[in-house]
């Protein structure tokens, strides 16, 4: 039921925000100094179309850093499910929409995630040009979203805004603002396609990304492809991973900011006989993440863990299960990694050879 509406100018989006804010808590990316954060926003303040991608993404709204699972008081224990007021994330970039869709698959059936996810209205916003450090185009996650939204905005260079409607909830939100969406017409579809092509063309040429991804897949565990001499030579060697290993400080920054990372640990927080069992973010780059009780470790060296992490992010082996590549090209890990081995840097290292 793809539907679209073209708004005459950016200001015409304001009634939509106002209508949404009547029903839901409204969250938007707001500039804080030179960077930005997801903030609880007031509809009375105009939408910031130019706010840069925040370092921390949208995943915390559904998979928060700390999620109580159950609590106990003396001898009785109770499940604790979150009950957030309906909310809207207004202005989710395509990379984050791809991350949310990815996590929807991983957390399918998880009550805590589902509770939060069901309460949200996702309003995406397409990127008209590449952001610094972003490479969503090269991993098929942007700069225009192909789905995963309730509504999606495309601010055109002439000032008009195309609003795509992806779900019934999106449609209802438009109706609430008395905005009538119509069936897709050829002209609007064409305008959207042209804007997308222009956005795609704005990305710097980074041929190393395709080369690196090809090499990651040449080192597939399936072995079948890797047995061919041509691909065996292209495989990422142990020596290359060993060279990257010491640059991992095990800070967990990459896994914390990554829109698709979903590893967690369970911690019991107790006080005087009462307590909570809490799900907290974990990281596969920590040595303790996979250390077995015997002391044996399947990935004992930092290089082993760095390889595993990037294998999960960059290999197509996981696409059948995860629905897409594990990396959405947002570039956040490149910002937060003290060791300078974020995604783009790793792709550059592997693809330059």
């Amino acid at each position, binding site marked *: 039921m793809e539907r679209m509406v073209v708004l005459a100018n950016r200001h015409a989006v304001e009634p939509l925000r106002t209508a949404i804010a009547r029903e839901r*808590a409204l*969250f938007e990316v707001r500039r*804080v*100094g*030179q*960077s930005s*954060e997801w903030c*609880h926003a007031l509809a009375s303040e105009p939408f910031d179309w130019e706010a840069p991608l925040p*370092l*921390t993404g949208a995943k*915390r709204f559904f998979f*928060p*850093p*700390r999620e*109580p699972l*159950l*609590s106990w008081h003396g001898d009785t224990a*109770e*499940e*604790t*499910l*979150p*009950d*957030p*007021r309906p*909310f809207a994330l207004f202005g989710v970039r395509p990379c984050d929409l791809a991350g949310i869709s990815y996590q*929807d698959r991983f957390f*399918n059936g998880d*009550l805590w995630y*589902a*509770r939060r*996810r*069901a309460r949200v209205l996702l309003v995406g916003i397409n990127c008209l040009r590449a952001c610094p450090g972003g490479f969503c185009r090269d991993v098929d996650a942007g700069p225009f979203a192909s789905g995963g939204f309730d509504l999606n905005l495309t601010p055109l260079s002439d000032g008009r805004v195309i609003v795509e409607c992806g779900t019934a909830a999106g449609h209802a939100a438009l109706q609430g603002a008395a905005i009538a969406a119509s069936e897709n017409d050829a002209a609007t579809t064409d305008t959207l396609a042209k804007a997308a092509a222009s956005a795609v063309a704005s990305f710097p040429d980074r041929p190393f990304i395709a080369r690196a991804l090809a090499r990651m897949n040449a080192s597939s565990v399936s072995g079948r492809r890797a047995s061919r001499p041509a691909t065996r030579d292209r495989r990422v060697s142990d020596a290359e991973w060993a060279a990257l290993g*010491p*640059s991992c*400080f*095990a*800070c*967990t*920054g990459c896994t*914390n900011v990554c829109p698709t990372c979903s590893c967690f*640990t369970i*911690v019991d*927080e*107790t*006080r*005087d006989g009462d307590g909570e069992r809490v799900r*907290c973010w*974990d*990281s596969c780059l*920590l*040595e*303790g993440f996979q250390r077995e009780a015997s*002391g044996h470790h399947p990935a004992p060296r930092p290089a082993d863990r760095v390889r595993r992490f990037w294998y999960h992010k960059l290999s197509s082996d996981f696409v059948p299960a995860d629905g897409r590549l594990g990396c959405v090209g947002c570039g956040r890990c490149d*910002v*937060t*990694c*003290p*060791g*300078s081995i974020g995604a783009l840097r790793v792709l550059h290292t592997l693809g330059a050879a």
Partner: protein
Amino acid sequence: VLDVNQITPGQVVVLTMETMQAIETTCPFCAVGCGMVLAVENDEVRDVRPLRDHPVSRGQLCIKGWNAHRSLHHSARLTTPLVRRGGRLEKVSWEIALAAAVDALRRVQAEGGADAVGIISSARATNEDNFAAMKFARAVLGTNNIDHCARVCHAPSVAGLGRTLGSGAMTNSIADIDQADCLLVVGSDTTENHAIIGARMLTAQARGARLIVIDPRCIRLTAHADLHLQLRLGTDIPLINGMIHAIFAHGWENSTYLAERCEHADALRAAVADFTPERVAAVTGVPAGDLVRAAEWYATTPRAFLAYGLGVTQHVCGTENVIALSNLALVTGHVGYDGAGINPLRGQNNVQGACDMGALPDVYSGYQPVADERVRAKFSAAWGRTLPDHPGLTSLAMQRGARDGTLRCMLILGEDPVVTDPAQHDVERALQSLDTLIVVDLFLTDTARCADIVLPAASFAEKDGTFTSTERRVQRVRRAVTPAGQARADWEILEGLATRLGRSLGFTSAEAIFTEVARLTPIYAGMTYARLESQFGLQWPCPHPGHPGTPVLHRGQCTRGRARLIPVVDTPPAELPDADYPLQLTTFRLHFQYGCGSMTRRAPLLERENPRGMLWINPSDAAAHAITPGVAVRVRSRRGALTTTAVISTQVPPGVVAMPYHFRETPSNLLTNNALDPISKMPELKVCAVAVERC
């Protein structure tokens, strides 16, 4: 896919994201001073995020920072005052606890004089807390007996660089690493202990700057280094003198700089004449060729950044080690310029600030000497009381005084000397000898367990204030949540004691304290909270309200005028291996832990990484003692013995074993030596003799 109608709700907890607040603050671990945001909900810190705009951390944090909130709401937090009754610590009201503390202070001072009490302030607390502690000691108790853990980290830097340059802090800024052509890192496991600085060093190396590491251990930096000088423990002075010898021998010195900005160059030249590369190689184990190459690289690059850590300072010759490095930096003219300098990497989040605030026995805030009559008159006038004129006791001297019976009462704020000071049995005996021990802390540390009165402190997220980072950057810390239970900021506790002693400190807020700091401290004079907040802090000296702060010290001329070259000669470690104790023990810090571990060990992810203290031993020594990976080993020194687990690793050279000091179950400080550097009173934590055997 998602069908909420299928969910059977249990106990529902309302966690609406819109109730979340974000509070900007400064990381409480290590002195890099990274910016962070605390996400607060329902008066609890849920989460930490890096601050992308921060000029030092730029959107990065190490894993300690990412976990900075984990200990804040821990069930082990002290929430009420405790007083020992019948051998047990019992919960009491603030009124009773403060009255007991005041009684003890009065009684001890009445019997033993003003100097019968001593205060250990906290490098983890704010500048405001430290200023209040130093004012409390001097203006209320009338003693200069105040010190803190800088004594066991960078007291030799304060003493050494104070003598040679006139200021004991980092001469340059962290960002100067980006401009350096050569990085000389001495006795600092930078990537593990100052991760964000270490990362910047690796980035500099990757873009082409030469990285030279001087360290007896193989560390992460040495894996990337262009040159690793793996010297024998305690041979820093011959090594550095050897480099200076090579510099003079090849004409690599900066003679213009020596002539225009330094004094006693001839004396230094004569003093290093004997330190030929061959002789130095025999003493230090560093090949003569490597030594000369390091000297050439360091001396002949335009911008050379020298950084050092506790591997330099924690020796009986700690001050002389610092002076040797200062000589090296001055001979080559690498002080007073961008991308250069001599840079002690301070350890704890606010150890620079605790020193700046005068939580030291011989200086008031801003390093203004107690012995200077005019300075004393200024502070006496400001505080309305004649202040004591003789310098007080250092931390280890306080412990000795306690064992001798001359020091009768100690007030320890946010430190755990039982775990972190050398020769643990001596420390415990000192604390047990006291008439009264008062401890202020977040947790019931091993030191607090020895106390008669324990007072619960507010954490970094529960109070306003400032921390001063290693690059002299004064930054805001903000109250994000209500203090745990009845906990109070250290300065509030001190104000409570002062008022009950009849001499109020006159402090009603952290900002009011900072205003007094600025008024009495020339290097902070131009700072206000408003200015600090507008630009992620200011670097001292900042002498007037329009001053932009000082990223690089000693431009044009040194703080003391001409820089002083002071010849130093080798001093071997106080304890060398022998037949009974054939191995050398050195101590180090782990990336995942901080100090005594009272905060980091309560963070589940951090504790999981290194769940136990361990002994690192070289494969050859392990084989000689039939030690296999993971077996229990007994480690003995002349001061104590403990059992721990072996890690067999070439990170340590043959003849050397290494232990981290964070773990109370296996305290390396049972073994360490408390022999002191005569100048700075720094104990020799970095080297002692031990015997190791398989259990």
